[in-house]
């Protein structure tokens, strides 16, 4: 058994960790590299799962979130076995779009989907998924953008703010044949045959709420208990936790949970301050345990702006692995702010996990904005500098740009760097 062999090699081995027991540990937290024990076959099977790739930093298995720009900001992608929490924007427009991108990516890669919602029927959600962009269309769009920005950039010579020329410009990565992330056209729908060919499980809470519980009530709301049972059953029956070793091809389970914490799930943390304050956090903890012991990745969207008790938000953040917050400009004062006129909102990367490592990949830039431009959802980082004459506003920039530059008062710079990556 692989477990015995690993223990025999001692502290110097860099092989994978295998559980010291009879059950083969199928978590994705296995190290890339030469194996000392005979688990090469299982490793090669893990790598060859469609739509995944090992992380550059620690060999962790990653899946794409559906947005290549977001993948790059998260250090390559979403790690299998972890939770990505999206803090919804105020009217739940862009977070539901990210949710659909996540599910669409799963269909394109052939992953199994588990869609849970208390608001919409999962079958309806799947009908609304965006269509993937084919390669030649994507290239045409990007060439157009590149032309537009080249003309803009050539006009702005950086005489005074010359340090900005050291900032990385648009990087065109190598285009690999087996695409990791895909681009989607938000104006078209996913073709019906692709949806029908995919394997998915839906959990629509109003339908399941009437069936009986076989776990005694333990301060979790009814909806959360049923959802956990459903997820655990799916993982167990489909063999994502390695319990069915005869399965010939391993696959990833993509779990998408929409509007978790909203009153539609039966939870009252969005309504009162002294509600059931442990239900959601207990749910997240047990979900984390389920994910760590199976080949699955989860995206949760949560209306954190509605949660009355702020302590819950920090607990939820600590219990999730990756946390991304969306802030849309609709209805806020920033909508009329000329600095943000090209964008639809800001995106905040609040937390990135350090998995199997002391360090993590974090981008230096913290000012990120997104926009939904024609068909594509793009994330760009904004570095803005205004003169002192503009209502006395001065912008402090992050990272190595910690200085205010005195510039010519008659004009202000606006510089856009595009973070689109074509893998």
């Amino acid at each position, binding site marked *: 058994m692989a477990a015995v062999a690993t223990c025999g090699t001692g502290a110097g081995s860099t092989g994978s960790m295998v559980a010291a027991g009879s059950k083969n*540990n199928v978590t994705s937290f*296995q190290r890339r590299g030469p194996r000392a024990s005979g688990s090469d076959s299982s490793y090669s099977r893990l790598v060859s799962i469609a739509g995944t790739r090992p992380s550059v930093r620690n060999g962790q298995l990653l899946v794409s979130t559906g947005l290549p720009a977001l993948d790059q900001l998260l250090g390559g992608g979403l790690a299998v076995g972890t939770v990505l929490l999206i803090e919804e924007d105020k009217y739940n427009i862009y977070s539901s779009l990210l949710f659909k991108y996540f599910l669409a990516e799963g269909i394109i890669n052939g992953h199994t989907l588990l869609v849970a919602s208390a608001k919409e029927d999962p079958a309806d959600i799947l009908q609304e998924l965006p269509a993937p962009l084919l390669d030649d269309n994507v290239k045409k769009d990007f060439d157009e953008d590149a032309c537009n920005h080249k003309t803009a950039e050539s006009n702005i010579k950086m005489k005074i703010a010359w340090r900005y020329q050291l900032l990385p410009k648009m990087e065109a990565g190598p285009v690999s044949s087996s695409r990791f992330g895909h681009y989607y056209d938000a104006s078209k729908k996913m073709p019906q045959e692709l949806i029908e060919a995919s394997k998915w499980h839906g959990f629509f809470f109003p339908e399941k709420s009437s069936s009986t519980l076989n776990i005694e009530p*333990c301060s979790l709301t009814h909806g959360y208990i049923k959802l956990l049972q459903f997820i655990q059953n799916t993982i167990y029956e489909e063999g994502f936790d390695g319990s069915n070793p005869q399965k010939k091809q391993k696959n990833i389970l993509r779990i998408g949970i929409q509007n978790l914490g909203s009153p539609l799930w039966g939870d009252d943390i969005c309504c009162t301050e002294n509600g059931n304050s442990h239900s959601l956090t207990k749910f997240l903890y047990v979900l984390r345990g*389920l994910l*760590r012991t199976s080949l699955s990745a989860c995206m949760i969207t949560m209306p954190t702006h509605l949660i009355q008790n702020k302590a819950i938000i920090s607990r939820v953040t600590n219990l999730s692995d990756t946390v991304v917050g969306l802030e849309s400009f609709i209805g806020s004062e920033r909508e009329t702010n000329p600095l943000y006129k090209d964008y639809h909102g800001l995106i905040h990367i609040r937390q990135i996990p350090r998995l199997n490592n002391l360090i993590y990949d974090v981008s230096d830039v913290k000012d990120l904005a997104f926009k939904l431009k024609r068909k594509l959802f793009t994330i760009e980082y904004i570095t803005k500098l205004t003169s002192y004459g503009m209502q006395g506003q001065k912008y402090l920039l992050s*990272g190595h740009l910690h200085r205010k530059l005195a510039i010519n008062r008659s004009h202000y710079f606006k510089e856009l760097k595009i973070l689109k990556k074509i893998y």
Partner: protein
Amino acid sequence: MFPELNNLLNTTPDRAEQGKLTLLCDANTDGSFLVHHFLSFYLKANCKVCFVALIQSFSHYNIVGQKLGVSLTVARECGQLVFLEGLKSSVDVFFRAQAEPHPLQFLREANAENLQPLYEFVREALKPVDDGDAAWRCPVLLVDDLSVLLSLGMGAVAVLDFIHYCRATVCWERKGNIVALVHDSGDTEEEENNILLNGLSHQSHLILRAEGLATGFCRDVHGQLRILWRTPSQPTTQRDRSLTYQYKIQDKSVSFFAKGMSPAVL
């Protein structure tokens, strides 16, 4: 373990102190590197370690431990390490009724009063073995982290009681050490966490507090570490000794330097 941190704390694995409670806390940053440090430190110091790992899986600690020079699988095999993997056990406890009391029993209960099953587990794990050959130095309890217990429905008083019982058994009776991590939420009004943090701060001999920089993110300086030595049992008129350093985390170690003396700046 990080040699620079050992120098700052003035300890080595050979001369590890006994009977101490060390409190790790982090504010606006991730203080888990301190947990990895103490785990590898006590394993190298030949102590028997009971690790209650509630927030990450075994393989995570194992892979980082290998970078720091200890192998958790070997330690577990030969009995030096007793590892309670919270995430994996929680799935078992939650979905299947257990025959005997499980340390994470409170997950199934609506109003769990105390953490007694967890304390029993710790006491059992760190029981002195009358085996002449494998005599470990001193028992050590490591908890990562206590704030998760608050999220799972336990009150701050229940967690403080648990630590108190563990201190009585591990620190006083068996002359061992306890290391626990608590998150500090900063400005949010999280009363339970503040009660827990204040209560533990008054009981601990050594407080290591990792904070994010007040000026925000920086690539070369990841945070600031405050070290505070205390003597909780004897109130002294002298001020407790405290040091502040800034640090940068690298792949296999952490480098510490005085404030403003980052190598990137000099």
